[in-house]
């Protein structure tokens, strides 16, 4: 077993208590709703007997830890309860909508790297040039623009005025690759811009630091071509950037909630917002737990990748 395997196992094990604690916080939070979830769901002037019945069917009469243990054992069996509004199983709803949200998040991820890697590299190589200033401005503006506003504006220009892309909706790229991508372009650009800005800044400053180090000069003096020096610089600069990319990848999940509402994409984010508006607490609880688990999982993968790529940590 190599060190990487050992680290991966250790890291995976350490995610378990965090998952347990976080899911407990969510379950407890939902039960903290002023007046209790059953009353809120049925309305304050509902028949008390009905409220009592719902409390019983939701298991709300039991102590919190019993509710939690029952919920988690259900979760392990893939049972997250049923929506109070539609009667649909929460797990079925999530299974149906999760791939949609993931495709949006992945699209955002690709767009952001597609922008950030060239922008950050050029900006560092040509410090204080016009393209450097452009990249710096982008780095600052990108984190200051609200993504939903950007989405609405892109929709207006490229959807309504020019008509290159559809205005709303979703087609799975698995069913129809071309049409699916056409639907994903604007959401991906909208979602990826902020992350692109953050990664551009980070990559630029890391590369500048690497370029200033002695080794790049020494290697260059030995007659190694600029392109090969660049390869070394990029490789070293990338290691810290990976952590930032990973953290941002987790935030793409959160950002996709807003994007799905802007572009009327029927993903998990839309489900979350609908369940908040409908006061469908069982659905809300399930969706939030799945989102958070994904976020923790992404962070875990990033940490392991970081360990794998950084030989210093392995010694």
């Amino acid at each position, binding site marked *: 077993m190599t060190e990487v395997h050992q680290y991966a196992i250790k890291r995976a094990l350490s995610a378990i208590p965090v998952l347990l604690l976080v899911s407990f916080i969510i379950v407890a*939070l939902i039960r903290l709703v002023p007046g209790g979830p059953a009353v809120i769901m049925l309305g304050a002037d509902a028949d008390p007997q009905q409220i009592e019945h719902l409390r019983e069917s939701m298991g709300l009469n039991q102590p919190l830890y019993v509710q939690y243990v029952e919920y988690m054992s259900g979760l392990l069996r893939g049972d997250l309860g049923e929506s109070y509004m539609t009667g649909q199983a929460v797990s079925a709803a999530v299974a149906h909508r999760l791939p949609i949200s993931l495709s949006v998040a992945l699209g955002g991820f690709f767009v952001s790297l597609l922008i950030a890697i060239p922008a950050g590299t050029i900006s560092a190589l040509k410090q204080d040039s016009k393209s450097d200033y452009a990249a710096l401005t982008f780095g*600052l503006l990108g984190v*200051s*623009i*609200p993504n939903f*506003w950007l989405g*609405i504006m892109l929709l207006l220009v490229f959807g309504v005025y020019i008509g290159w892309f559809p205005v709303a909706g979703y087609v799975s790229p698995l069913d129809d690759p071309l049409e699916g991508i056409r639907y994903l372009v604007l959401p991906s650009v909208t979602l990826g811009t902020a992350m692109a800005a953050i990664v551009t800044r980070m990559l630029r400053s890391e590369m500048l630091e690497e370029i200033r180090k002695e080794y790049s000069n020494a290697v260059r003096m030995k007659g190694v071509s600029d392109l090969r020096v660049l390869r070394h610089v990029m490789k070293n600069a990338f290691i810290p950037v990976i952590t930032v990319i990973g953290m941002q990848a987790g935030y793409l999940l959160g950002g996709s*909630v807003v994007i799905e*509402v802007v572009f009327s994409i029927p993903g998990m984010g839309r489900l*979350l917002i609908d369940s908040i508006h409908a006061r469908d607490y069982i659905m809300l609880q399930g969706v939030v737990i799945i989102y958070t688990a994904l976020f923790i999982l992404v962070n875990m993968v990033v940490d392991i990748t970081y360990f794998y790529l950084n030989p210093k940590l392995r010694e």
Partner: protein
Amino acid sequence: MRRLRLFAVRFRKSRLAMAGAGVLSTFVFIGLFGPYLAPHDPATMNTANALAGPSLEHPFGTDNYGRDVFSRVLAGARIALTVAVFVPIVSMSIGVPVGLVSGYFGGWIDNVLMRVMDSLFAFPAILLGLTLVAVFGQGLRNIIIAIGIVFIPQFARITRGSAASAAKEEHVKAARSTGASHLRILGVHILPFCLSAIMVQASITAAVAILIEASLSFLGVGIPAPEPSWGTMLETAKGYVESAWWFGFFPGVAIIFAVLGFNLLGDGLRDVLDPRMGPSR
């Protein structure tokens, strides 16, 4: 006093910090006096003049109820300013003490506190905000508390880092040997050492807080209509974007302006306060 003067000199030299201060003083001015500057009452409806384009009378046009968008954007600055000021205060009031204790004492206290912070950190910001608002309800006060909770771990981590290195300083050890209480050491010797990092974080948090408030309001779970929150305006404007671009365009520009101000200030402060970290450019 000397340190303060040095700070002022460096601050004035930093273009980023000065630009941020310029943008922010405009923003604060509008936030405080917006209602007096507004040419119209932001709440007065005039359905006969709904969705009218920009004109001399209405520089940003009118909305779906015929209200003056310019006046509403000005009024919205006050909400954004309130969020930008109070969210960092909420986060700091818990995050900073946690970080101080964690960094100063170390050991198992540090371990326990940081695990708790990690679990709070395990939520994506907007999701935690959404859940808290879904549970405790909408409205400006709840939004500020919810977003404030989201940023507790950032302050705790940053304070902890500075506090841990401050605790190793000679003068702290000296103070301890003269019998100073832990509380005194934390307040007099450790906290001042952490302030610059906390200030930078506060500025960045203010920027993100404005964005999250706008996002939550846009999603319809933030500040309810008819309050002229920029996010709430955009929620309505989304439905009219094809026929009235100005209705959605200008509130967004206002958000960018305010957020950019805090980001510029944060970047500038980082350069000014911590020359070791090197200028970001």
